[in-house]
């Protein structure tokens, strides 16, 4: 049964710098990188190429010893120029200098009808070797799925409600055929349903309008209504011992391309957003691309932070850093490393707040778009609970109690309070609104790690 769910709790962070719906060309990136740190839950990353090797797009270059069937592949063809390691030889990046003309590893091609009769084993084999498997994320824990599991259902969120999020419909224009093929492949992996969750408001994007083999659910409400974790909670929540998989619409398209074209195609339309971007637009690039060509000359000022992803769940990268595997946007923000005289007391309409405490006047003008910088806006303090966490978490979960259980490392309590149902992004708004400035997402991951590896 498809569902329509109206969510009330949550908060839309409205920022300046939404990407205009037009595709601009920037000069293509010269280097690309695969970052093992993008793949949460990767336990023992192992590089399978050496510096100086040449690779094609789709050549395996990395795997996790703990889940060695899943191969991570090069997004482009070229030469492996650096295997960058950090402290204790922790693997950070595998850098590839791209060829001018990309050559691809060839994989099996399927027609529409031969896809229908695709066997599960065949599907898994091509996906794990063709580099698209890591698009499948397992719930609980939010880690790369294990091909040996069979999930109770697969969930796809068809829209993104994060601040300045890229528009899924725009980014995937014209990919209908591949999306459908991807859904067909996914249907081999589960005996349950494939849920496609769409925004109840606005038109259905063309990429989803005629798709078959999915169950459509509709969600409305402020962020985090577009988070797949929230959607699962309202459709078919995850209980202890159950496994579901999630995948982004782009991931489905990429799978489709692998099976229809026989290629690992890392091409991706991403949004360049943020108040400090001169041109906030969409552009075509590839997974793992160096962002320097997008940032260079596209800044309103020099003192900025470049984020791969959105402002709630993203990761700070260097100006010549690399687009994360799962990111579909970069956000450019002003850096906030300044002191502010009596900053805690000044009345202001320029800073956004979910609260309405003395002098925080942003509530007067709820549709205004704000320029926010990266300042913490206060100091870390003891938990003082005022009920705001609950009011931005549209789930039957008590965030404060769950977070306290994690801090106390109380395994039973974590389980009973619903740790299986959340990952970082689901409580990211709590981190934003928190009066005491706790690293909520870090705490959530700590709890998941405790449960997963105990």
């Amino acid at each position, binding site marked *: 049964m498809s569902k329509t769910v109206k969510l009330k709790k949550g908060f839309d962070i409205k920022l300046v710098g939404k990407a205009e719906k037009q595709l601009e060309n920037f000069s293509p990136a010269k280097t690309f990188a695969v970052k093992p740190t993008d793949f949460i839950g990767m336990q023992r990353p192992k590089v399978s190429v050496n510096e100086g090797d040449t690779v094609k797009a789709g050549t395996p270059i990395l795997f996790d010893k703990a889940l060695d069937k899943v191969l991570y592949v090069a997004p482009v063809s070229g030469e492996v120029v650096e295997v960058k390691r950090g402290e204790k030889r922790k693997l950070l990046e595998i850098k590839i200098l791209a060829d001018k003309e990309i050559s691809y590893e060839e994989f099996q091609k399927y027609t529409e009808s031969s896809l229908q009769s695709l066997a599960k084993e065949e599907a898994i084999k091509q996906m794990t070797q063709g580099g698209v498997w890591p698009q499948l994320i397992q719930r609980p824990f939010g880690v790369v799925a294990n091909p040996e599991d069979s999930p109770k259902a697969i969930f796809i969120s068809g829209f993104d409600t994060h601040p300045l999020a890229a528009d899924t419909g725009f980014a995937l224009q014209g990919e209908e055929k591949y999306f459908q093929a991807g859904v067909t492949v996914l249907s081999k992996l589960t005996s349950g349903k494939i849920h496609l969750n769409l925004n109840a408001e606005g038109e259905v994007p063309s990429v989803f309008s005629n798709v078959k083999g999915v169950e459509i659910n509709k969600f409305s409400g402020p962020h985090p209504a577009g988070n797949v974790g929230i959607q699962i909670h309202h459709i078919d929540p995850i209980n202890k011992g159950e496994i579901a998989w999630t995948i982004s619409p782009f991931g489905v398209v990429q799978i489709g391309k692998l099976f229809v074209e026989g290629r690992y195609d890392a091409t991706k339309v991403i949004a360049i957003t943020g108040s400090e971007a001169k041109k906030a637009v969409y552009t075509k690039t590839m997974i793992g691309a160096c962002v320097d060509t997008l940032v260079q000359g596209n800044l309103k000022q020099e003192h900025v932070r470049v984020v791969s992803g959105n402002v709630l769940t993203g990761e700070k990268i260097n100006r010549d850093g690399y687009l994360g595997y799962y990111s579909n946007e970069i956000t450019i923000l002003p850096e906030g490393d300044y002191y502010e005289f009596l900053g*805690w007391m000044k009345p202001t309409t320029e800073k956004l707040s979910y609260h309405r405490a*003395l002098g*925080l006047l942003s509530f007067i003008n709820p549709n205004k778009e704000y320029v926010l910088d990266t300042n913490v806006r206060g100091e870390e303090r003891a938990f003082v609970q005022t009920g705001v966490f609950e009011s931005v978490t549209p789930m039957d979960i008590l965030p404060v109690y769950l977070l306290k259980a994690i801090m106390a490392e109380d395994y039973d309590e974590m389980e009973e309070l619903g740790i299986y149902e959340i990952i970082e992004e689901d409580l990211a708004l709590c981190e934003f609104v928190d009066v005491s400035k706790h690293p909520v997402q870090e705490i959530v991951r700590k709890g998941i790690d405790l449960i997963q590896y105990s």
Partner: protein
Amino acid sequence: MKFLRDLLDKQKPLFQKGGKLEQFYYAFEAGETFLFSPNHTNGIKGAQVKDAIDLKRMMITVVVAMIPCLLFGIYNTGHQHFLAVGQTAGLWEDFGPKLLLGLELVLPIVIVAYAAGGLVEAAFAVIRKHPINEGFLVTGMLIPLVVPATLPLWQVALATIFAVVIAKEVFGGTGMNILNVAMTARAFLYFAYPMQISGDQVWTYLGDKAPVDGFSGATALAVAYNAGLEGETVTAALSSHNSEVQQGLFSFWNLFVGWVPGSIGETSTLMALVGAAILIGTGVASWKIIVSGFAGAFLMGLVMNLLAVNEYMSMAPEYHWVVGGLAFGVVFMATDPVSAAQTETGKWIYGLMIGILTVIIRVTNPAYPEGIMLAVLFMNVFAPLIDHYVVKANKKRRLQRATV
């Protein structure tokens, strides 16, 4: 402000690790962050932008919400004195002298409470190496508002120190305490020095002047309680009380506005409601607790009416809202986010029980004319239990889902 910043930057290394005054880092931090919001930026992963709120701003909002009560209390302290000694009858007559007298009596109490509590707070911050918590901004203001203006200053200091140490620091500081700190201070005074904080003699400052003939310093609660014993209707007793001093001193309206004797900040229901409007409007305090607190008192008042065996029990329930410190306690004490119930369902129960208990204590207990203090402390103790059952219900829903 550049020179201030430069000054701080110059001193900072002294207090940082390896500096000479390392152990005073948190004292320095308190001063520094008071003047300047820090230049910290968000971490590499996770939320890259943050809400403009911080604990300082939240706490100062509560302090601002108390200012109407404080100002009213200052003037009322002077006003009650002038009434009692028969100097003036009109409310706004002798405005200046009343205000001055009020300031003279109240300000020292505020200063002593802040100083004593602040020192303890700073000492603990230095010894235990935790930041000085802004929660004390609120506590330091609450304590003066719940004591009579005649209270000796050394008692103010002692009660504040006792409350900060025993009610807060031994539990690990702000955020960890079980009892409301200001209420603990008051309870300490109540049991340790009852002479100075109960009875009929302490609520009005007389100084060296003699009161007018027939003056009684009793509060409305005491009058109502005695009416119950003597079989006189409460409203009659209230309206005839102290008629030598002022006609209609304890009329419903006058009680509501608060021109009556009592603790400094608690007499005015009106001002407490102004505070409530600020707290609810800014979203700092839970409206659920405030609404259910008032509702609980009214409901229990009705129940008392039904069971009435004496006149006090048949007092119209709305009187419970305006006599004593119920309004102040419900708005400012019960809503303390640390010691109140923390679940949304729990807040309803918690507030309701505070209202109910207050009325029960008032009406049925001969030893305590006012019930709000004990009701808040009692429910502070029970808040974790309420939360426990609300949380358990949440767990149960999850568990049931799994077996279906």
